[in-house]
């Protein structure tokens, strides 16, 4: 039995929370963070190369210039400055600046929006993960097998879309998404259905039947004039994958660990749901204060969405979510697990619909439907289905899946550290392992999704793409490369650390070390930029010589980056194979992982959330001085891009806030009920066979 906490300060959770808040405040309350990060304070005393050396001189000049400007004001009175505000609905804009503890209008908005997206990603990403885990943990009763048909199709749609889009991007297969989606879904459907009554086929036959049936259906449903071999091949692969996963899941030996994992995460989802709503409200209020003209215009541009679709979906999702959370034990006890799984799938469908619906206005801000002159006359649907809409849907779908995996890592790591009993430690050690595998596996296609998103943006308006890749956001992208390298590295380090608790696994260590050499080389290549100044052309104070010579420029081109990414993914995959072989051939001592393991998982999760927030920052800043690109101009004083240093610090602040809240939520959702229990917790028991 666990010891009861005797006082607040002895309570482990309270200590952690106090500690986190203390460090957070220390970092965050660095006074007077200004909007411009040319000051030393906002750079946290790590002054930078580009123009830092000239700061002192500039300050002197600035003072002189201010005097001059005063003198010029009178003469400039009659000057026509309407060009600053004469763009569209911004014409009558009256702007009020607010400032509090270094937060400005933009930073308030940035903070609220990012926090909202992080919680929203949790409640959208984790339910996908939870339903699959629930299926894996459920005994294969008649009702469960019925539900598995549906869950297999749901999973197959997700996997089919991801493989399809990857084929479309990498191989250039026309309508790859549709081929992937239909083939995988129907392959899964037929195999699940045929295996429902009896085990009709083994794993190879499932792949074959899935491939044949999926290909036939997808060929009929995909609107192409001529069939191409590549498309058919993609359909065959997807159909086979659909068949394989269906067979695998249908006949998987139910493991109660999965059920427990799903149930525990669901408890956290419930609390996160409230935080999503809270931060969503906060975001809206902040927008109404900081950017009221713009948010009014945006909402008015999507009347049906914001007045009907969004509230309806939100209410429905809330209802289904609470049914899902609170019906877990009752339905288990009533032997109705299948119904609970179906509820979970409905929850996911609603969640994804909500995500897709809100991606409409989000992408409309970036790529409003052309021709812009017709914006007032086109339908709301036309505005939603703009060029970047589907790519962002794919990107967020996969990104949320990765997010879910890494959040499970963090939950596993926290709970491992908070557990005293061996059985608990064994279990949470396993949870961390599962979270890492899923996080990394889903992260592998993520670069392809990012690529297709940016490709659409380039096609829409290359200026935005260039702003991201070659201009003021180029160094931001460099940091992204560094983060991806860090995450792959941390994931592999975790595999290494956790293999030390597997008997006879050390035979793979020399090869794995070689893999780490490859990882470092790949990360270095991914990180290598074409130039070491932060804009397309050197601006005053920058060193124009910091450019790679032409004969070495290939190191900074996509050809090298892709090879580096391929290498990172391959080494990770190879290490995963080593890990899998080791677990099959040697005993795994769960609960005895090197204590370094949980901290690596926490580091990994932190990096993932940081990267996600960073990419959000890049996407928002890429609109430059436009709220809606070339439609609604940003005429506020903060229309410029903040520096890398300022953004890095602010994103860290947001991520700390999220982690403090998540630490509290994990404690309240999972740990606290355990510490309160006077007898062994009454976990959901496996249901009886029907």
């Amino acid at each position, binding site marked *: 039995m666990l010891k009861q906490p005797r006082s607040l300060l002895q309570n482990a959770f309270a200590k*952690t929370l106090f500690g*986190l808040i203390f460090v957070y405040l220390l970092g965050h309350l660095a006074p007077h963070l200004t909007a411009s990060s040319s000051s030393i304070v906002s750079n946290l005393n790590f002054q930078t190369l580009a*123009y830092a050396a000239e700061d002192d001189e500039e300050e002197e000049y600035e003072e002189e210039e201010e005097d001059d400007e005063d003198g010029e004001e009178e003469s400039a009175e009659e000057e026509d400055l309407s060009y600053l505000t004469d763009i569209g609905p911004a014409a009558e804009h009256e702007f009020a600046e607010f400032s509090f503890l270094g937060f400005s209008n933009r930073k308030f908005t940035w903070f609220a929006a990012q926090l909202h997206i992080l919680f929203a990603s949790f409640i959208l990403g984790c339910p996908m993960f939870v339903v699959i885990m629930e299926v894996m943990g459920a005994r294969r009763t008649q009702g469960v097998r019925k539900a598995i048909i549906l869950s297999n199709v749901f999973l197959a749609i997700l996997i089919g879309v991801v493989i399809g889009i990857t084929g479309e991007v990498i191989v250039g297969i026309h309508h790859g998404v549709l081929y992937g989606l239909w083939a995988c879904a129907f392959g899964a459907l037929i195999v699940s259905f045929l295996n429902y009554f009896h085990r009709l086929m083994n794993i190879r036959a499932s792949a074959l039947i899935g491939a044949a049936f999926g290909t036939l259906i997808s060929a009929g449903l995909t609107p192409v004039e001529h069939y191409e071999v590549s498309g058919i091949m993609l359909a065959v692969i997807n159909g086979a994958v659909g068949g394989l996963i269906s067979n695998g899941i249908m006949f998987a030996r139910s493991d109660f660990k999965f059920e427990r994992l799903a149930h525990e995460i669901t408890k956290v989802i419930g609390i996160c749901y409230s935080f999503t709503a809270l931060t969503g409200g906060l975001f809206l209020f902040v927008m109404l204060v900081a950017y009221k003209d713009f948010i009014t215009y945006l909402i008015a541009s999507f009347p049906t969405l914001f007045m009907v679709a969004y509230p309806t979906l939100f209410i429905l999702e809330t209802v289904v979510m609470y049914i899902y959370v609170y019906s877990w034990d009752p339905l288990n006890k009533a032997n109705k697990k299948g119904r609970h799984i179906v509820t979970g799938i409905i929850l996911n469908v609603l969640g994804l619909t909500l995500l897709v619906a809100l991606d409409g206005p989000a992408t409309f801000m970036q790529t409003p439907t052309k021709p812009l002159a017709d914006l007032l006359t086109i339908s709301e649907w036309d505005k939603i289905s703009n060029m970047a809409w589907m790519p962002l849907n794919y990107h967020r779908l996969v990104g949320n899946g990765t997010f879910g995996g890494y959040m499970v890592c963090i939950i596993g790591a926290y709970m491992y550290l908070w557990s005293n009993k061996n059985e608990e430690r064994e279990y949470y050690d396993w949870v961390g392992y599962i979270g890492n595998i899923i996080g990394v596996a889903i992260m592998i296609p993520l670069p392809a999704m990012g690529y297709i998103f940016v490709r659409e943006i380039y096609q829409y308006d290359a*200026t935005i793409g260039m702003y991201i890749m070659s201009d003021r956001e180029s160094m931001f992208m460099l940091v992204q490369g560094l983060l991806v390298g860090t995450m792959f590295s941390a994931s592999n380090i975790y595999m290494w650390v956790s293999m030390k608790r597997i008997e006879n696994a050390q*035979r793979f260590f020399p090869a794995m070390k070689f893999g780490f050499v490859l990882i470092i080389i790949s990360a270095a290549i991914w990180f290598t930029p074409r130039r*070491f100044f932060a804009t397309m052309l050197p601006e005053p104070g920058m060193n124009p010589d910091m450019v790679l010579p032409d004969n070495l420029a290939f190191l900074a081109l996509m050809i090298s980056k892709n090879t580096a990414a391929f290498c990172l993914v391959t080494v990770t995959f190879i290490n995963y194979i080593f890990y899998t072989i080791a677990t099959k051939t040697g005993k795994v001592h769960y609960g005895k992982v090197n204590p370094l393991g949980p901290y690596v998982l926490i580091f990994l999760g932190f990096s993932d959330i940081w990267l996600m927030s960073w990419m959000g920052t890049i996407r928002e800043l890429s609109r430059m001085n436009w709220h809606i690109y070339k439609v609604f101009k940003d005429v506020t004083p903060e229309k*410029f891009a903040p520096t*890398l240093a300022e953004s890095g610090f602010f994103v860290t602040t947001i991520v700390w806030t999220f982690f403090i809240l998540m630490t509290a939520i994990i404690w309240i959702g999972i740990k606290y009920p355990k510490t309160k229990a006077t007898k062994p917790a009454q976990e959901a028991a496996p249901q009886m066979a029907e």
Partner: protein
Amino acid sequence: MKIDMIIVGVIAALSGLFALYSTFGIAGAIAGLAVIGIYALLLQVKLQKLEEKTFFQNIRFKVPIILVLAGILWVLAGKFNFPVWWQIEFVAFALVGFFFFTLLDWKTLKLEKSNFDWTIRILATYALASTIFIVVTAQLPQFDPEFELSKLNRPPVKLEGLAGPEVIAAGREVFENNKCFNCHKVFWEGNSDRGPNLGSKQIGLYPAAYIKDQILSPRRNQSPGFDDPKSKKAMPTYYGEDLSEDELIALVSYLKTMRDPTRMPIEGKFGQQWTWWDDKDIIAEGQQVFEGLHPQAEGLNCAVCHGKDGIPMMTGALDFRNADNTDTTKIEGDHTDKLLKDWPDALWYRRVTRGVPNTPMAPWGTIFPHLYLWKAEAYARTFHDPLEKRTAKRPVPAVPTKEEIEKWQTDGMFMDPLL
């Protein structure tokens, strides 16, 4: 299980090799094979049970190895002309490697004895991650937001009341704001060689209407050497919608300044370039100009004096058939001892555009578009250096430096004062 793994491994390895071969050719495939070979060898190593190392044992070999490696990387990067920041980057990654391998061999951490232990460790983990990200973002090159702000607050381009140099400056701003530098270099300046270097190509030689058409309908005339499908789609087609008429005029005015009085125009992608001296299409067109048949250069007929077949029709006219001919001595202070076959491009250009005083060789540059004069020169060379007998193309000259370009202006090498 084992067989399945081997099959998956072989397929993955073959796919990887194919990908490397398609990207980097034989060298890529060999590198891939080497990686597979090393993996295969290392999997044969029979490792004894892992022994825990103390911190000193852990780093005693790693420190000297990493120091040597970092030194080698620094020197090698310098030898390959990597600027200093790349040298620092490579050494930094070597240190990251040191950190990695130290961590891998780190002895098993002690179990937390109290809640305080793991609280500190969790905080340290967050602090480590935060410190890395904050330090990296603070140390990478920054830009000054005020500079962007000043650009954003600048009024849109209006040409009314502006004079020549101001229009050109406004055009340069349009060029920058629309991020043309991302794909087009202008001589030494710019971001990549995705599109033609507009300076080396000397886009300014072309008529304004042609340049404007290239901006508005970039698919109509593809620049030589950029005929691949990717390049054909690269130039956006929306500038007609985005740019105002004033901006377009200013942009064309800026592009018209892109000329080089010292080099023949250069075509093609970086690494596969050629000069007009070796361009058969240009030479064919040059022949038309030379023989007075080109409709765009009506009135210009080099053959009248120099002869259609290269045999001079007039006394004193340069005989292009004789590769060892010498330069004129009729221009005071401007004479070279170089033989015709060794004449620099600048001399060809100067003689044709400025002429030879007191001879029928007029300053044709004041009369005809220089575009056609360069073409005629490319043809004239073929009299002593026939295209079909050339075994190699003339070397593509280096891109002029900023100082060199400034010198053209101070030395008055352009006939147009705005250039």
